């Protein structure tokens, strides 16, 4: 804080938990403008995008690179974004222009707006133009309308368990896709359910504790804003299975804005939507689509690029907007 050079780095860790409270707020403040956070040995170091050039020479290149997109809401056509296909295409262009080509993509749900076959078709067609060919999907609540997710599983999660959950490994990183948009209870938030929790506990139990873990699901697995249902009822149980692990990254969507929180060994991150923004928690009467001036729309939409660095137990999470 004392000089320009250090103002974008978090160097204080009073509680030895990797969190600098002031720094955490700074990281939050960057949401939407782009933040770059690296966790090394449990200590968070974060930088604004404007200071990236200062560190890019020092940081090793990632050995695994993937990209997260979210909330494409194909079929939505209201004033907040009358052309969600165009902004999804812009997201693909952004992905194709990344300096390190991602190996694959994660889509954290709300692929469609109304679970219509044509909407799913359209997204699949647009994503075919992306350099990474593999896409791993989890459903949002808009993808399981009126059929309990049958169509979603048939298209995007063949061979998955239960409502559509699964796991896989890429270059030593263990990925788990969870479903928290089904069987929601009155007055509650997102829901994983007993069957999925049991599966999840078994799935990670056998892993070496040094395995980096990435968990992705649609609704945040942390309480962002329970008043709007922005959280998951039984996420604490799920996270308890991850306590022994040194590096855990949780990637979510649903809230149409970037947000990050670090808690011990766990980094929580939400991606922007490729379709329309939603208001900051509590800043509007409801979490409905937010209309911004047309020329500002792409600056509040975006993609999230994630790189893992071997031997550093680090996952670098970089948000970039669709503007420019």
């Amino acid at each position, binding site marked *: 804080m004392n000089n320009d050079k250090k103002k974008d780095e978090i160097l204080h860790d009073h509680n030895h938990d990797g969190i600098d409270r002031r720094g955490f707020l700074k990281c939050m403040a960057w949401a939407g403008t782009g933040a770059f956070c690296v966790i090394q040995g449990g200590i968070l170091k974060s930088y604004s995008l404007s200071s990236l050039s200062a560190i890019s020479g020092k940081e090793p290149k990632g050995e695994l690179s993937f990209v997260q997109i979210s909330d494409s809401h194909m079929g939505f056509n*209201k004033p907040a974004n009358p052309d969600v296909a165009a902004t999804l295409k812009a997201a693909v262009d952004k992905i194709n222009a990344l300096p390190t080509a991602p190996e694959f993509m994660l889509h954290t749900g709300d692929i469609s707006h109304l679970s219509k076959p044509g909407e799913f078709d359209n997204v699949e067609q647009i994503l075919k133009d992306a350099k990474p060919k593999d896409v791993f999907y989890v459903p949002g609540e*808009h993808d399981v309308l009126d059929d309990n997710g049958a169509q979603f599983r048939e298209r995007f999660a063949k061979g998955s368990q239960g409502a559509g959950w699964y796991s896989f490994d890429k270059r030593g990183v263990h990925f788990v896709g969870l479903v928290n948009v089904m069987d929601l209870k*009155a*007055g*509650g938030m997102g829901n994983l359910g007993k069957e999925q929790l049991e599966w999840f506990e078994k799935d990670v139990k056998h892993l070496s504790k040094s395995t980096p873990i990435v968990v992705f699901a649609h609704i945040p697995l942390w309480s962002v804003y329970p008043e709007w*249902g922005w959280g998951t009822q039984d996420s604490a149980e799920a996270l308890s299975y991850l306590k022994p692990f040194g590096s855990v990254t949780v990637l979510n969507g649903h809230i149409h804005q970037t947000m990050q929180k670090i808690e011990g060994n766990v980094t929580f991150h939400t991606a922007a939507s490729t379709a329309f923004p939603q208001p900051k928690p509590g800043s509007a009467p*409801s979490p409905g689509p937010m209309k911004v001036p047309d020329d500002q729309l792409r600056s509040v939409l975006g993609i999230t690029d994630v790189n893992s660095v071997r031997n550093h137990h680090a996952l670098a999470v970089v948000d970039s907007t669709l503007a420019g």
Partner: protein
Amino acid sequence: MRKVFYLLCIAGVLLAMLAGRTRLFAATPASPTPANMEVKIDNFTFSPATITIPAGTQVTWTNHDDIPHNVVAEDTSFKSKTLDTDEKFSYTFTKPGTYSYLCTIHPKMTGKVVVQ
């Protein structure tokens, strides 16, 4: 235009309520003409959240949000399809009782129908 629409809605609700009330105090309750009741879905809220109606009333929910919602009874006695913007769902309540319902897409949204 919108204002006029809302005023009409409010007038409609008031009329429906009056109609319901009249029936409650009517001397001959046999085979009454079914009353109608409107519930608006606006800003992720059912409004009014609780309604009290005589048996035989048809309730119509209309989604005014840019986001789809649905109307599902907790005891599954009624269940709408997903309602996109401006779509409606109607259900006629014939048996007295208290019916709690929610939008299963956004479960923070809850409402209640008390049938007398």
